[in-house]
Every structure is written in structure tokens, then in C-alpha cells.
């Protein structure tokens, strides 16, 4: 179990390898990689605006705490044999990696569900904010209701 916030890019193959190497009790590894898209998909815009770059701000201290807590929650819900969250901050270009989530388990369904859960919760509970650079200038990204709906799937009760 590990989570990191960093400016540098991450190497997906190396991160997965470090988590799984020599761990022969692992049967399945689920991975999600979030990437900077080059268009805004704001429901209110007529045509998608071209994104030239993005800046990710976060709340140092609270971010790390929330990532650990979300990861603990995933590990309490599914029998994971390994998990990792890496989230980048700072200036990013289209095509750049933003976030990496890796979950390893004996059974594929546990790994896949935990991975899906982690990215949904991270999107609504971890203090990161994106601002996008377009030809019209810089603009803070609005939170999406669809993200709340996806995260709510995992609420108990």
C-alpha cells in the first residue's frame, strides 16, 4: 500500500513491476491511468475547446492523508495483495499522465473493482484542482455531477 504526490512523470511498467515482482500469490493486476485530454468537455460549450495545457494544484498534507485513507478503505473492502496511487501536480501538457492507480489481488474481480473504486473516490475526495489553458485563457475546471454519481455507487447503506 503506497500513495504519492509528485511533479515528475511516472513509468507505468516500472511501477507495476515494483508492486508485483516476485509476488506469486497475485493472480490479477488492474490498472488505471488518467491522461490529459486535449479538449474541454464542458456540457455548456457548443464545440469542444482545445486544451493547450493544464495545471494541477493540491493541498499539501491533506492530499497525502486523503489518498492514504482512500487506499485503506479499498484494502478494507477487497482482499488486495498490493495497491498504489501516484498523482501528479504542477503543469501538464496534453497526452501527459495525471494519475496512476494499481490494484493487485488473487482474483481479478477484486483487483478490477478496487481499481474502479479508488479512481472514483479519488476524483471526489482528494483535494486536487485542475485549471486548463485554452486560446481563451486559463479556466478552473468545474466539478462534474457524473463524478459524484460514480463515487456514490460505492457508498454503504
Amino acid at each position, binding site marked *: 500500500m503506497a500513495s504519492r504526490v509528485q511533479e515528475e512523470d511516472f513509468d507505468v511498467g516500472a511501477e507495476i513491476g515494483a508492486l508485483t515482482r516476485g509476488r506469486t500469490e497475485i493472480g490479477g493486476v488492474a490498472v488505471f491511468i488518467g491522461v490529459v485530454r486535449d479538449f474541454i468537455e464542458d456540457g455548456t460549450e457548443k464545440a469542444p475547446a482545445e486544451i493547450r495545457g493544464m495545471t494541477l494544484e493540491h493541498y499539501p498534507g491533506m492530499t497525502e492523508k486523503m489518498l492514504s485513507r482512500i487506499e485503506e478503505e479499498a484494502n478494507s473492502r477487497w482482499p488486495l495483495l498490493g495497491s498504489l496511487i501516484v498523482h501528479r501536480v504542477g503543469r501538464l501538457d496534453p497526452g501527459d499522465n495525471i494519475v496512476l492507480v494499481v490494484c493487485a489481488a488473487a482474483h481479478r474481480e477484486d483487483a478490477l473493482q478496487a481499481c474502479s473504486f479508488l479512481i472514483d473516490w479519488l476524483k471526489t475526495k482528494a*483535494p486536487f484542482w485542475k485549471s486548463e489553458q485554452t486560446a481563451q485563457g486559463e479556466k478552473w475546471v468545474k466539478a462534474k455531477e457524473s463524478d459524484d454519481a460514480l463515487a456514490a455507487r460505492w457508498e454503504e447503506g
Partner: protein
Amino acid sequence: MKLLYFAWLRTRIGCGEEEIDVPAEVATVADLLRWLEGRGDGYAAALARPDLVRVAVNQEFASAETPVTAGDEVALFPPVTGG
């Protein structure tokens, strides 16, 4: 009290972090937001849409009723958009 502002709350208020002496009658998050709104145009603009303002007290998500005291770290920010 240590106040932190993120994303467009930071840009509207014009700073990311400040130490403020808050009056004794400010006992909750709701009190604090009301008091901050009166501190100037930047604050009023930042806090004009309370439905878009989230608060963390000592790095834990808080509600309007959450108590605040002088030694706290209180952060104001919009709904998160990472991932």
C-alpha cells in the same frame, strides 16, 4: 487561525495562505465564512456562491456546524477536480 485558499478561491481572494486573528464570536465554519465575507471585495466575490465552497478544518472535511478555534488550520476550496 491559519487560513488556506485553493483554486479560484485563492485567485479571487488574492492569496493562498494567511494568519488571521478571528474574533471570539466566530465559533463555527458558518460563522467564519460570514465574517470573512465582510473582509473585502475579494472575499465577498470568492464566497458569493456558498454551494461551491468546501471547507476543511485541520485537514478534515468540515460542515457549516464544525467548530473552529484560534489554533486551527482552516482551508477553503471549490469541489475537487483531480484524477
